[in-house]
């Protein structure tokens, strides 16, 4: 039997201050740069505006595209290559709420036909969104996150104990903050796909926290006299092989997406890859220390509470 990291006795929790310092520094750098260097880049889904993906038969000069658009009065457009020198995306902000969302894409296409000729390129993707749709999407995403917090909190309070619920929720909030900081640091554009990835990270990280908490719950039942500090450390160590294996397979799938699934999915894969790391980190260094801290503030009445936890769990 080939085993890695079994029967380890690392004192993980001891390093929680260092870990907290690191993660707070990361969050401060990321979130801070939102304030210092301006907010996020949002995709056209959120801001309203137009995104066109073009495929040229021969790689054109980027400057020539800009010139063609500027000549027609398209302002503040962003022209970027997309995967290869023949593929470009063009973004233009919408400049009026009353106009139909597709007027800008038509104009851009017309200008490019004038500049390059009709057969020189093909529009492979167009997304045009009015700003109203965008703000509704943003609201929907925030509501989704808040509701998922609440649902998690209630579920864990029922299945474990309110202390576990609060710790897991705070760990999840931590993951959102670090992931958002990460997105800012690597200049990732916020799109619906990225939001979906963020929500998946929440689910994944929660999963990981629950696996460790499940072990804590079990160890608390087995050995009621042991200090919680030791129980937490023991539980993290006992679940370590599982953590390594699962994170390895999840990361393998994520890397496959990152490198092979193409340009459109790449932001999703980036967020997910970071999420696996931050989710693992937060289960050990956020959820556990907070559980410990709540325990010192609001200690369990040893017998009553643990027997309740015992009743709530199966078998």
């Amino acid at each position: 039997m080939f085993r890695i990291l079994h029967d380890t006795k690392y004192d993980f929790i001891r390093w929680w201050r260092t870990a907290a310092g690191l993660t707070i520094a990361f969050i401060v750098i990321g979130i801070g740069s939102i304030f210092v260097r301006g907010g996020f880049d949002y995709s056209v889904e959120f801001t309203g505006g137009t995104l066109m993906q073009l495929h040229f038969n021969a790689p054109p000069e980027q400057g020539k595209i800009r010139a063609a658009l500027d000549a027609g009065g398209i302002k503040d457009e962003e022209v970027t290559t997309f995967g290869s020198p023949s593929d470009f995306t063009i973004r233009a902000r919408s400049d009026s709420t009353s106009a139909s969302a597709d007027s800008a894409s038509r104009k851009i296409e017309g200008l490019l036909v004038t500049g390059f000729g009709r057969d020189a390129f093909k529009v492979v993707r167009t997304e045009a969104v009015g700003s109203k749709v965008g703000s509704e999407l943003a609201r929907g995403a925030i509501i989704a996150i808040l509701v998922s917090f609440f649902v998690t909190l209630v579920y864990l309070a029922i299945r474990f104990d309110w202390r576990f619920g609060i710790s897991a929720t705070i760990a999840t909030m931590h993951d959102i903050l670090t992931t958002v900081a990460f997105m800012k640091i690597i200049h990732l554009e916020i799109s619906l796909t990225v939001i979906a990835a963020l929500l998946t990270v929440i689910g994944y990280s929660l999963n990981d926290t629950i696996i460790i908490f499940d072990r804590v719950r079990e160890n608390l039942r087995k050995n009621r006299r042991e200090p919680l500090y030791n129980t937490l450390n023991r539980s993290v160590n006992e679940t370590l092989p599982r953590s390594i294996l699962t994170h390895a397979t999840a990361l393998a799938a994520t890397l496959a997406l990152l490198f092979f699934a193409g340009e459109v999915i790449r932001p999703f894969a980036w967020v997910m890859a970071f999420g696996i790391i931050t989710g693992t980190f937060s289960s050990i260094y956020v959820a556990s220390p907070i559980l410990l801290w709540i325990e010192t503030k609001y200690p369990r009445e040893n017998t009553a509470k643990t027997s309740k936890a015992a009743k709530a769990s199966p078998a």
Partner: protein
Amino acid sequence: MSNLQYRLAAIAALIVASGWALFPRTVIERIPRNGSFVTDTVKRVPLKKGLDLQGGMHLTLAVDESKGAVSDKSTALDRALKVVRTRIDQFGVAEPVVQKAGADRIIVELPGIDDERRATDVVQKAAFLQFQITDKTGAFERVVPRLDGIVKDKKLTGGATAPDVRGDSSKSPAIKSLFTPKSDSVKAKAAGADSTSTTGPFSRLVISAAALGSQVPGLFFVAVTDQREIDSYLQNADIQAALPPGKVVRWGADSMVANGRALIPLYVLDSRPIITGDALIDAQPNLEPIDGAVVTFTLSNEGGRKFKNETGKHVKDYMAIVLDDRVMSAPIIQSAIGTRGQITMGGKDLSSAQDLSIVLRAGALPVPLKVEEVRAIGASLGADSVQKGITAGVIAVLLVVIIMLGYYRFAGLLAVCGLALYMLFTLAALAGFSAVLTLPGLAGFVLSIGIAVDANVLIFERIREEMVHGKAIRTAIDEGFKHAMSAIIDSNVSTALTAAVLYQYGTGPVKGFAVTLIAGIAASMISSIFVVKTFFLVWLNRNKTAETLSI
């Protein structure tokens, strides 16, 4: 039958059901062939691909209230939905979706269509047809001096902008901004200095038809380069108040060239239409030797009577055929006209005549609609996404298989078999619920391949612990499954709850992603717990005296 046989039978049944759900079946479908759509039978795997994977258009339409509030929005939208659906059906698309979303939106999905402009035109065109007599009282000429005065007093400027010769420039978003006074506008200064001149800032841009030798009363011309400026004046509230009562000002649909300048006609019309498109019962595209593409229309009997009566009163007057506030043509009424007439397309090709007859037949939209959202994805990009998604999936499977076999050996092999069934079950569930597989959904599926083995990892680690504690193989396996259960259930249920929240509050692609996630969780619970346990039982059954387990 023993417990084990029941288990095997259940797994076999699941595999058969999944296979059946995914088996390619013959469906009747409208498919494109040589540019037109024909109904034919095709064989295909019943996994519905989203527009982002198969290419096509997604449109979100909403009631356009920029030109005045709409009172009964919900009813109006229901009627608009019917009109849009009729138009789309005639447009010829394989499996179109036209549905109401929320209280004030219409969603249109057109798989396989990538001519964005033509599709949005057909959907969005109000197709509000009116016949109006051109003004012959000279009312407009009389108010022009007042219009000049207002432009001067209010310091309105049209701005010297680049010409926009496109037909719908009046709807262009840039127009409104032209109202903001520009200090550097040469024209505004010129107009201010020119106060003693007889030609005011408004009138100097408008050319009377008589000057170009046209007999049509109520017809004026404006240089195409000045159209925006005039348009911005005409949208001003003060100017609108000063226009003659009972008259409306409408642009012509097409520009013309005279004296070396491109000119666009501006009509002054009686605001009361003698008849509207409601009375129309048929419209057909035609090619005429002189006029080119035309749409000939037929009016209902009642409409025909009314039309005959009205045109009889207006013999020798000019009648403007106005479609969506644009004058298509303004022929002279030679004698009373009955139930038939035609609209000339002004040199456009037959396909535009076809589209116009589609929208005229389907009827006018009861409310103006605006496009709030367009997503158009070329079929080649969609196919490319599928191809890359499959590549990523295959590589993900390979990596996971290597990790599981390398670490867990024989038990890993069982988990890999479980994983194969997991993929089969998930895809079958998606097909069974006729969920739409989107690109984020595909990414979620690939990701889930890496996460689905988690349950097996948990179980195997438990079995190892039990074995280390010196338990017999059979007991260790039993206990391992039992002890891992609470962690598996709690973690999966909480993820499923998150997915349910996503489904509830997400839109479009995110919703598809959530469905994939939920289907994946259910399939992974079945495959990694029930199926893999059964595999272990089969193995134990064959090796009753096994003392070691390769795990």
